[in-house]
């Protein structure tokens, strides 16, 4: 049976969406798949998105198939809306933000560590397994809806944050294959997928809206993370080309931070009136604030809205009205809190505040100490300034993505700030015209990308978003108490294209036979000039970030007399965007693949 559909999957930190399009059609017809899921015990409802939460039920709750799905019986856990609801009231049994753990190199992501900090009685699962469960659910929904189009024969595009490094991509891949995705599925960066969703609009509109030299900033603020990407417009043989120029770091700040900040603020207002909220009420308040956020952000000066807006927490139990508590919240205060907290009018040279490092930092997720998206944006634009730019790269257009930007005041503020940085009026960076589906753009764009790949639509060229380096200890006299100086050998240059490989000149090293060899591994989103074989002796901590180490073992039974084998490196980016690093013997032509050893704690990670 031939491939019928291209399937785009957005595996979000807080929500998953699946879009699909028939492969053989003249125009892309992208649709969303409704995903049946538990919304309460024993109750199945189809929703457009699958919340990325996993509830590990106690054995007493699974009797009678309370967690069964149309395609799976005897379930001991729940994924989706029910799990999200449980997450608020039974946090010890609910896995949240597995995706953020996936790229957190300070923990072993194959170990059952989630829910983080759960008591021993709960049978925890690993971030990789949680990711696998979400994908299995999506695939189950697909099989139920499309019995005549087996997943293994469809073309699948899975989105990952642009800021995911090679190790996090590899782990995502591992989870996806375990869940049953076809071997040849493709990874696509989320902000690029959002651009594809915009490109999918009929009539080649983008050729009118963008011109040579334009630079498009994709600002994606989702529930848990912020992802920044810059796409440039160039010309080649008279045709406009899109080129991904830069991606930002993985920033753990998003809409959930805003809801929580707002809830905290409103809880303070309740406290001023002498009302202390219990844990259940606090959860309810969080939901109320999420729902009221947009109403609260409506400009206070507009004539139809009052200066205050009520926020209520309904009474628990059957005494709903009697138990309801309410405060009037000043719109101005909310605007100050959220605008100044998350989108302040900062200067372009103002960098995010760093967390003061205490000796006893908890391992948990490395949430951003500075929640100001604008300051992170300034740092991103500054880091990628080219020679033509003054101090920061100047975007000409902005594409918003992520649920946070449903609130129009945030979009306007971000454009205002960019206007202050780069000149207002005609020159100011402006938002891309057109309809934007802020929640589903990534999945839809992924499906469109798969279709365009076949049908010959426009593609964004990019290659790797980072340069990669292997740490090499320099030979020399050992100094007691001091580590040997470390150098970084560039093995993958920035922008290395899919389907290419590079032999790394120089850097010949000896691999000991029969023992695992470890290599420290670094990446840089900003060093764009380094070529394979370049050896760095110094770098600033901002430039190179250490990720998971690599490891290879030369089997003992090789016909090798020497105790060690001299090798050089060869790097490869497969057609599917998978990074591979090989050690090649300089004597025979044998080669050994280096694997990420994510089982170990990232050594020396800051």
């Amino acid at each position, binding site marked *: 049976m031939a491939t019928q559909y291209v399937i785009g999957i957005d595996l979000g930190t807080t929500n998953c969406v699946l879009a699909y399009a028939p492969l053989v059609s003249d125009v892309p017809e992208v649709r969303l798949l409704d995903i049946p899921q538990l919304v309460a015990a024993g*109750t199945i409802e189809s929703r457009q998105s699958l919340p990325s939460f996993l509830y590990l039920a106690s054995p007493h709750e699974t009797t009678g198939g309370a967690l069964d799905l149309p395609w799976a019986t005897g379930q001991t856990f729940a994924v989706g809306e029910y799990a999200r609801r449980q997450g608020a009231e039974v946090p010890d049994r609910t896995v949240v933000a597995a995706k953020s753990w996936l790229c957190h190199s300070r923990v072993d992501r194959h170990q059952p560590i989630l829910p983080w900090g759960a008591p021993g009685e709960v049978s925890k699962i690993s971030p990789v397994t949680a990711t696998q469960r979400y994908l299995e659910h999506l695939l189950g929904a697909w099989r139920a809806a499309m019995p005549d189009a087996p997943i293994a024969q469809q073309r699948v595009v899975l989105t990952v944050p642009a800021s995911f490094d090679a190790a996090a991509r590899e782990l995502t891949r591992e989870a996806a294959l375990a869940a049953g995705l076809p071997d040849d599925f493709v990874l696509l960066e989320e902000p690029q997928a959002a651009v594809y969703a915009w490109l999918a609009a009929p009539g080649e509109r983008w050729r009118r809206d963008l011109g040579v030299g334009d630079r498009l900033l994709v600002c994606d603020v989702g529930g848990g993370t912020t992802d920044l990407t810059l796409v440039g417009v160039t010309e080649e043989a008279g045709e406009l080309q899109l080129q991904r120029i830069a991606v930002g770091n993985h920033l753990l700040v998003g809409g959930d931070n805003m809801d929580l900040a707002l809830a905290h603020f409103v809880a303070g207002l309740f406290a001023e009136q002498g009302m202390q909220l219990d844990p259940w009420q606090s959860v309810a308040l969080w939901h109320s604030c999420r729902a009221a956020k947009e109403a609260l952000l409506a400009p206070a000066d507009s004539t139809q809205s009052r200066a205050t807006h009520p926020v209520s927490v309904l009474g628990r139990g*059957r005494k709903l009205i009697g138990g309801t508590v309410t405060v009037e919240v000043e719109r101005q205060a909310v605007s100050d809190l959220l605008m100044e907290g998350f989108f302040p009018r900062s200067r372009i040279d103002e960098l995010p505040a760093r967390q003061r490092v205490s000796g006893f930092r908890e391992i948990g997720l490395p949430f951003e100490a500075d929640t100001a998206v604008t300051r992170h944006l300034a740092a991103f634009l500054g880091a990628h300034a080219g020679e033509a730019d003054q101090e920061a790269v100047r975007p000409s257009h902005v594409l918003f993505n992520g649920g946070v930007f449903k609130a129009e005041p945030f979009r306007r503020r971000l454009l205002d700030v960019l206007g202050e940085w780069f000149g207002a009026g005609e020159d100011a960076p402006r938002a891309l015209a057109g309809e934007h589906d802020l929640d589903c753009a990534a999945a839809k764009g992924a499906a469109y990308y798969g279709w365009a790949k076949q049908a010959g639509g426009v593609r964004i060229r990019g290659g790797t978003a980072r340069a990669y380096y292997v740490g090499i200890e320099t030979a020399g006299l050992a100094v007691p108490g001091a580590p040997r100086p470390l150098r970084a050998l560039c093995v993958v240059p920035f922008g290395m294209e899919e389907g290419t490989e590079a032999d790394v000149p120089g850097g010949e090293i000896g691999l000991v036979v029969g023992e695992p060899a470890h290599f420290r591994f670094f990446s840089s989103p900003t060093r764009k000039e380094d070529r394979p074989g370049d050896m760095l002796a110094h770098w600033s901590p901002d430039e190179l970030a250490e990720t998971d180490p690599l490891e290879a073992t030369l089997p003992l039974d090789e016909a090798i007399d020497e105790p060690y084998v001299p090798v050089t490196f060869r790097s490869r980016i497969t057609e599917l965007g998978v990074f591979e690093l090989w050690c090649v013997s300089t004597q025979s032509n044998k080669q050994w693949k280096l694997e990420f050893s994510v089982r170990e704690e990232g050594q020396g990670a800051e």
Partner: protein
Amino acid sequence: MRRIWLAIRVFFLVLFRREVAEAVEAALEGRAAPPRAPVAPAEVQTPKGPAPAKAPQRSEALTLLAALQREARFVDFVEEPLDDYTDAQVGAAARDVHRNCRAVLQRLFAPQPLLGDAEGSEVEVPRGFDPGRYRLVGQVTGEPPFRGRLAHPGWEAAKCDVPSWSGGKSAVKVIAPAEVEL
């Protein structure tokens, strides 16, 4: 031959089953059969083996009520006597209940106005209209098409996606489970 057999069947069915008798009477008088739940024809009732153990079913109406209670506290709100509360107290709770009820209705039914015309504008009720789609009030005389003022544009569900339920026998009529904090 077929018609003889049919006549014999009809004779016995009219004799023993009231709903068939009514339908035949209606057919003889040339009017449509009264609308009612479709009745399985007699021959379907041939005895089969023991029915497989089926999961208990329940009315979609209860599942809808459970959804409104779960997401919007609808039953709590309506069941609570209002006598002891001020309008401000009721209003404070109603705002949240209203918002969440609407979210449920939008998601499950996506109600749309039946007619796109503005309230108060003049509309035409076509010849052969479906009385399920138009309710005529005031002085109803003459033959359609009628012209009149649109008092209410009506509502129509764009979809009907009530959740499906699969629970145990003792939970068939449960709208909301008892919550116990441990």
